[in-house]
């Protein structure tokens, strides 16, 4: 039996496979298909303090090997979550990670303060890709200073570890990664979706009501992998890889470049049991390679020396 457990420093998880935020609902919707306790972690849908409706439809467009979404973070708010969802997740023995959102710095803080009083949450994933109303709708994730400011504030407000989720829509993601680490983030996860656009050629209008949206799915995997690799090289805190993971091999690529764990998103829509298959595939891979622990594989990536140009 291979030991698939991984250590994030502040917590040891039974395996490195999580379901990604916004792609497994509040976790409960997955119960017909899988036992939540078999996952390394369940990252629930982004939570603001108050309930929200999100963007008008249409919210989704399928693209080549990808999905463009402008869901707009609808949700039930922290109170309903703590009252109705959390106890059920606890009963399922799920390792719960809450994706924390906010319209303002203040709201991020209120969300974690409120949730800190409720047991059954392993740690927080700070979603800094939310439009910030005080900054003209710009996401903190796009700016190192805003990232530093929010992460520091949330870090001070909570007893629980925080993992900051980075946006790929920046020129140099390592700058934002460093800002989050310096502000005290205990881990980093990346990437969120890539901004994209799709046009209805019949009407000449955008296919999404919100005009543009975020691209996810297999199409983004190489882009995400490159960024995860760069960030692992830059920071000391553990990094969790996200983007286009569908198979065990996809997950292994992220682990190879140094991610301690991975989140699986869009693939859950296609196969709600995909995470369990990935876990099996990791088992089989390690057995084949005669690795007794998955941790011996993490960071095994060795870039070839650049060949002399002639």
């Amino acid at each position, binding site marked *: 039996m291979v030991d698939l457990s991984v250590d994030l420093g502040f917590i040891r998880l039974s395996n490195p496979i999580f379901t990604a935020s*916004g792609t497994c609902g509040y976790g409960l919707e997955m119960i017909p298909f899988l036992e939540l306790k078999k996952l390394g972690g369940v990252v629930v849908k982004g939570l603001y303090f108050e309930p929200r409706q999100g963007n008008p439809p*249409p*919210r*989704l467009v399928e693209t080549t090997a990808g*999905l463009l979404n402008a*869901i707009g973070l609808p949700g039930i708010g922290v109170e309903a979550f703590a009252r109705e969802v959390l106890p059920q997740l606890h009963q399922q023995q799920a390792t719960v990670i809450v994706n924390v959102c906010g319209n303002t710095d203040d709201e991020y803080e209120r969300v974690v303060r409120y949730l800190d009083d409720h047991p059954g949450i392993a740690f927080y994933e700070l979603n800094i890709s939310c439009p910030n109303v005080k900054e003209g709708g710009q996401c903190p994730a796009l700016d190192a200073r805003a990232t530093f400011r929010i992460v520091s504030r949330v870090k001070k407000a909570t007893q629980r570890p925080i993992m900051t989720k980075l946006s790929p829509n920046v020129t140099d993601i390592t700058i934002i990664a460093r800002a989050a680490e310096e502000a005290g983030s205990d881990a980093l996860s990346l990437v969120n979706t890539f901004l994209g656009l799709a046009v209805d050629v019949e009407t000449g209008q955008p296919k999404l009501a919100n005009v543009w949206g975020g691209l996810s799915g297999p199409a983004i995997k190489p882009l995400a992998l490159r960024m995860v690799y760069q960030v692992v090289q830059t920071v000391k805190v553990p990094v969790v890889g996200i983007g286009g993971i569908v198979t065990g091999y996809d997950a292994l690529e992220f682990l190879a470049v140094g991610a301690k764990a991975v989140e699986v998103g869009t693939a859950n*829509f296609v196969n709600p049991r995909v995470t369990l298959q990935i876990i099996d595939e990791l088992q089989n891979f390690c057995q084949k390679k005669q690795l007794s622990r998955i941790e011996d594989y993490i960071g095994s990536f060795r870039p070839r020396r650049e060949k002399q140009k002639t």
Partner: protein
Amino acid sequence: MSQLIEAVIKDKKSWGDYFFVTFQAPELAALAAPGQFVMVKVSPKGPPLLRRPFSLASADREEGTIAIFFQRVGLGTNLLSRYSPGEKISLIGPLGRGFSFEDLAFPGELLLIGGGRGIAPLYYLAQKLKERGLKVIIFYGGKTQSDLPLREALAKKKLADKLILATEDGSLGFKGLITDVLEQEVLSPLAKKAFVCGPEAMMKKVAELLRRWNLPGEFSLEAFMGCGFGVCWGCVRWIKRGQEYQLVRICQEGPVFSREDIKWSEEE
């Protein structure tokens, strides 16, 4: 509860761009109800990446089969149309909330109004209503004759006490829209309820007529679905909940909704 299964295709019938495919899927047949749907992975390893939703067009518990009826409109339905009996395909279902008809009893008269491929869930519903001895009047419309392929099966299986056909080009039945025919229909005092599925414009018109007649109606709505089982929040529509409209997931709380709860236009 819905399930993820591999089902074997048992039978396939086709008429031009329309297909009726039966699957051996006892797990789903045991739970299915009219108005519910399945999510089908049309290619094992994409593209298209995502599953496609199809209403159940039939389910037989004893035989352990379910069926879908679909129109070829794009990549996914094109690939799906190429499967042959004996091949396997991945399904999730049964999903969503279907039509409510349990409270209806003889001598009620029901109107089933379907446009094009929208006949699919009504075909299943008609079977259930006839089992209960209810009187069923089916309005079935399309652009042209070839858009009404289920007319023969409806007649042969005696699923309609009265089958009213309409085509826009007049190649079969009444010439015009099915809603035009409906508008001229003299409503029987026994008419209890309408069940509707079809293009958005058609459903909107039917909703207007039902409101005028003060007749309850249920509509099977469509939206692009990312998952079909409630995790992506991609399939929402404005639906009345309590006093206000909310963006509700069609795949979880629908796809069937009551006429009064659906927001048909921005002004409402």
